[in-house]
């Protein structure tokens, strides 16, 4: 990864009529970086990707690829490759013709395009499938052809639009690794759109969380996990999702009182007056089931889900808390539990704006 910027978005806006799809988006992607755009559907992540490709034109701002302003440049002159969710393979062409399509358009000599196709087929494991038609391939194989078609062009950037969402769970995990290792081998710059935060966490160097056309937060995966800058990011990154409860700062300003449940410690270095109400974010994996009486959150078990390696304990009440418990538990519904959490693991957010409070 170098410091050279490969993609730069400066105050980019996109309107569809009255709908404001992208709002003052600023994003810099370095050469060789793997960037994931995540967010719920309708957050603007696909619009952003399609704007990079040139399939959508931005309304305002500047879009640069490899230092050149691309605002009005048509897709075919941007030198970026895209892998579509549907793969968008040309159904009337064999695999080899799908791969060499871009080269044939440039009237590259046949020997040259065939050699390039063979090379790409070797990296993507398609050697034996070159003479097949897309309809004769499995989902994973089609996915590989779509990637091969992008690789053969040596583009300035690879754009992935939810490429794994049509695959079954096992294949998805496998392709995750494959795409990432391909990215590393090619030294490519990749922008990857997904709604699956696990994909983003496992694949990307840099995650951009979007919501309603705005970048909520961007940074390294663990940075987003450790210090979500808004309540939304806290809830979006991490699985199972973070628990949110209303909490009032106690008189001693050392604990937070949570109605009907008990108390949790107040993290240090936060300027809050006694009696102030905030939203506390407690990750399921940070809640511990403790024995005996004492401070903490007191609740009754509603039900328990076992996944084998871990169990999820969900408590009664509104809101019910989810607790991630490694291994198996003997807890049964209606049993009373005491939950404790370390002060540094309590995330606090402003009740109105949802912004993170404190460090």
């Amino acid at each position, binding site marked *: 990864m170098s410091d050279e910027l490969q993609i730069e978005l400066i105050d980019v806006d996109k309107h569809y009529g009255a709908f404001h799809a992208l709002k003052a988006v600023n994003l810099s992607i370095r050469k060789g970086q793997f960037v994931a755009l995540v967010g719920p559907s309708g957050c603007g992540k696909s619009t952003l990707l399609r704007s990079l*490709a*040139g*399939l959508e034109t931005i309304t305002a701002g500047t879009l640069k690829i490899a230092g050149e302003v691309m605002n009005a440049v*048509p*897709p*075919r002159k*941007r030198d*970026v*490759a*895209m892998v*579509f969710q*549907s793969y*968008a393979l*040309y*159904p*009337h*062409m064999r695999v080899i*013709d799908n791969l060499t*399509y*871009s080269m044939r*358009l*440039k009237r590259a000599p046949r020997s040259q395009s065939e050699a390039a196709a063979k090379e790409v087929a070797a990296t993507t494991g398609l050697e034996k499938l070159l003479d097949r*038609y897309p*309809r004769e391939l499995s989902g994973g194989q089609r996915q590989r052809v779509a990637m091969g*078609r992008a690789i053969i*062009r040596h583009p300035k950037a690879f754009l992935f639009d939810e490429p794994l969402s049509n695959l079954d769970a096992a294949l998805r995990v496998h392709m995750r690794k494959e795409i990432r290792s391909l990215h590393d081998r090619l030294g490519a710059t990749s922008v990857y759109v997904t709604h699956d935060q696990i994909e983003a966490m496992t694949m990307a160097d840099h995650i951009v969380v979007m919501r309603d056309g705005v970048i909520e937060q961007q940074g390294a995966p663990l940075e987003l996990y450790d210090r979500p800058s808004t309540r939304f990011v806290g809830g979006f990154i991490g699985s199972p999702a973070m628990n949110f409860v209303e909490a009032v700062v106690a008189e001693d300003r050392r604990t937070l009182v949570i109605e009907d449940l008990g108390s949790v410690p107040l993290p240090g270095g936060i300027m809050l007056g006694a009696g102030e109400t905030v939203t506390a974010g407690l990750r399921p994996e940070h809640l511990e089931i403790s024995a005996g009486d004492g401070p903490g959150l007191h609740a009754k078990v509603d039900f328990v889900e076992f996944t084998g390696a871990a169990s999820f304990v969900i408590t009664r009440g509104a809101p019910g808390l989810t607790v991630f418990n490694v291994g198996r538990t003997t807890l049964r519904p209606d049993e009373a539990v005491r939950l404790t959490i370390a002060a540094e693991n309590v995330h606090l957010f402003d009740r109105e704006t949802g912004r993170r409070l404190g460090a």
Partner: protein
Amino acid sequence: MKRIISGLWDGKGFDIALVVVALGFLMIFAGLPLIYNVVMSFQKVDIFSLGTFARPFAGFDNYRAIFADPIFVPVMKNTVIFIVASIVGQFIIGFSLALFFTLDFPGSGYLRGLFLVSWVMPGLVVGAIWNWIFAGDFGVLNFALRELGLIGGNIFWRSDTNFSLWAVIIANIWLGTSFNMILLSVGLASIPRDLYEAAELDGANALQRFWTITLPMMRATIGAIIALGLIFTLQQFDLFAAITSGGPANSSNVAQYWAWELSFREYDFARGATISVLMIVLVMIASVVYVRSTRYEVRG
């Protein structure tokens, strides 16, 4: 008996019954007349033997007579010109319109629907309207061409032997264009948008996208359109009856109109049937070509 009835209700019997109904219908209303027509072309038929099936065998006499007829060559030439010009005209205009309507401008849906009006109208009515348009001294077509400076004097479309066939061709193109457009529109709509986007990113300009994506993906639709176009143009009778009646001097006479003239004007049913058999052979050849071209789905 009981077995047969129960088989009819719950087993294969029901499927077979359905097929038999359809096949029976086809046999009675299409198969038998076809065979009757072929048989008649090998018989001596006159107005008195019309009621009986047992007529004197004529061998290839009827065929020889048709081939030897002085108007055989001009009529066949007219038929070929009529078919080719009509199909090419309908296809090119229909395809252009279909592409135009993919632009999806406001009101495009309604406008496209309006084009179907031409297909709803009876051929004789269309012919009558075109007669006014073609009229030599007050027709709007002559007026337009004159004002555009394309012609010096009036063209007598229906009575000039150089133009009579083309008058029918123009009317027929107008009649068939909307059908072509609708079928081609459906074909265009079935091409996924992201194929065009992928091609655009791969570096294809608009013309290259049309040649490498649109046309090959439309292959089956285009094959069907041309095969159906051939059948519809060979069936086209109303326009000839309404516009030129095959004249003047057979300059716009075509096989299907000639067959009708021989059978129902001159009551020479045998020769009328003979021309029909020749047309069947032509359609069969076209059908085989069509079926072969669509046997292997879409391939570039």
